[in-house]
């Protein structure tokens, strides 16, 4: 199958008072039609920046984005517009992402209107039903919704134009734990029905485990490990992935008690001053002299790719 989305050396820098921040630093990725790719990493590692570049909310400093085989990296707004219906995004904060002064119906109709649909009403109502809200919610305002309902509306807006790729930027992190599973299930169900691909962003590996076929782990603007879900979750190759996984509680209490736990020391370093060599070395339990000087590149390791001089598996 050909790739729906291809990222090639995608990089984004920000100029700040403390110097230039390389928020995303040379990310290569492919997403196939209909699949879900999990994008995981601690806060500030560049997940949202990557996601926002994908949907052209943010311009890439360098690198290339190809969508459906077409280079969209620098497509001007007018030529990007027809593609907007195929490339959508769901945000983390469901209230912040809905205009408090517009009704849910008009919010969901907007993407259709942009695409030139003359009478969006029926499709808006159909989409409301699909996300489990009911067409009667069309005349309501966001402040009348619960967090979970608001996120359903955000999903309806993103999916109403039947996109082929949706970036879901931590779509459940802001919700009560009790509704997180409902929303994740809804996203999975809609994927089956509408044949769309997700880039599913999360800050821990537990959330994406059940929904993604492949997973990419980011650290300080780079991908440090990427591969099929079972390969990565079954036997992580990168020490950082291993540390993240050991923070995920296991369902089996015996396994939970007996397994090895790796506690990540400290916070990730600032992307304004990334450590030399392997950016993870100040926190890595396996760091050697080589790690401090030589930066590891993504390479094939036991059926997936990892960027580590001393991977956990061979």
């Amino acid at each position, binding site marked *: 199958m050909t790739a729906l989305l291809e990222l090639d050396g995608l990089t984004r820098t920000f100029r700040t008072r403390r110097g230039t921040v390389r928020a995303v630093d040379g990310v290569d990725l492919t997403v196939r039609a209909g699949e879900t790719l999990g994008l995981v990493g601690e806060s500030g590692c560049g997940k949202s920046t990557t996601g926002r570049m994908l949907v052209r*909310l943010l311009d890439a400093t360098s690198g290339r984005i190809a969508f459906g085989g077409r280079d969209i990296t620098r497509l001007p*707004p007018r030529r990007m517009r027809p593609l907007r219906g195929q490339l*959508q*995004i769901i945000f983390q904060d469901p209230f912040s992402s809905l*205009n408090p002064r517009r009704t849910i119906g008009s919010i969901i109709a907007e993407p259709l209107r942009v695409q030139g649909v003359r009478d969006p009403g029926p499709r808006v109502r159909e989409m409301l*039903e699909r996300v*489990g*809200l009911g067409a009667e919610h069309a005349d309501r305002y966001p402040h009348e919704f*619960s*967090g979970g309902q608001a996120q359903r509306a955000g999903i309806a807006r993103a999916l109403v134009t039947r996109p082929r790729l949706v970036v879901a930027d931590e779509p459940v992190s802001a919700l009560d734990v009790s509704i997180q599973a409902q929303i994740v299930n809804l996203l999975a169900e809609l994927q089956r029905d509408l044949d769309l691909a997700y880039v599913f962003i999360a800050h821990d590996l537990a959330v994406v485990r059940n929904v993604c076929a492949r997973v990419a782990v980011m650290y300080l603007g780079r991908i440090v490990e990427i591969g099929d879900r079972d390969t990565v979750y079954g036997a992580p190759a990168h020490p950082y992935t291993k540390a993240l996984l050991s923070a995920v509680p296991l369902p089996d209490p015996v396994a939970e008690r007996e397994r090895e736990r790796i506690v990540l020391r400290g916070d990730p370093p600032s992307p304004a001053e990334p450590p030399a060599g392997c950016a993870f070395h100040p926190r890595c339990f396996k760091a050697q002299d080589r790690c401090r000087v030589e930066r590891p590149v993504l390479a094939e390791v036991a059926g997936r790719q990892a960027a580590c001089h001393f991977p956990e598996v061979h």
Partner: protein
Amino acid sequence: MSALPLTPGRHAAPPPAGRSPWRLAGARLRHDRAALLGLAIVALFVLMALAAPLLTALNGHGPNEFHPEKIDDALAGAPRGSFGGIDAHFWLGAEPGTGRDVFSRMVYGARISLLISLLATAVATTAGTALGLTAGFAGGRTDLLISRVMDLVLSFPQLIFMIALVSVLPEANRTLELVLVMGFFGWPYIGRIVRGQTLSLRNREFVDAARATGMTRRRIVFHEVLPNLMAPVLVYATLTIPVNIGTEAALSFLGIGVRPPTASWGQMMSKAIGWYQVDPAYFVVPGVCLLLTVLAFTLLGDAFRDALDPRGGNR
């Protein structure tokens, strides 16, 4: 699929469907006594100003008619009778020196006061909203330029500059000149607030969502950002009105407001100063009018602020 259980909202009893933020604010205002009082006083003065010709027809005296029979030359022109000459025809007495009907002048003064302050507020609000929105949304150099101009205008000692400016302007249409000068010095207050609100709105995810759907910048400004600015703009415009009422009165008091014989409260007060020992009643009428209108608009503005949730419905 649609059978998924929906979690209940945060409110124990969710409001009925389709209640817009404006309607919610309206409902809150209806229970706010200070707001209702402010609104009643404002309505009274507005009605009075609108009905000025009718009211003066009732008492039979135009605002500029001289009534020498009402004043006592032996008392250097003080009105005859007690409390500034109040009687069945001169409901609020007569003006010392000329015998003009104080009630009629007060009613016509309300016209000038409200007309100038409302128009000046409209000018300041329109300019401030347009420029603040442009600065906040465009950012970069445009923002820098507009922000510096706002700082500059705000740093002027305003009353002095207004006096100077109005004094040197040719006397074509004094009302228009006052409106423009007051509007010019007033817009940066609204401009600053609108700019700040726009900056924070621009970073709200619904603006990103709008961009991601491919909406044009123009449509984003008018359909996503501007509706969220209307509440703070209404609040600050309402609070600008009493400031302008005061400024108009001050300029008239200093003799550079509307030209006599057009009646204005500030002018009446400045005249009353010379008579306060013989005729204190003459000072009370314009003074009370000024006090009441300023108070009423301030009450109303504060109530709008409380009811409209200046965070723009943000939670």
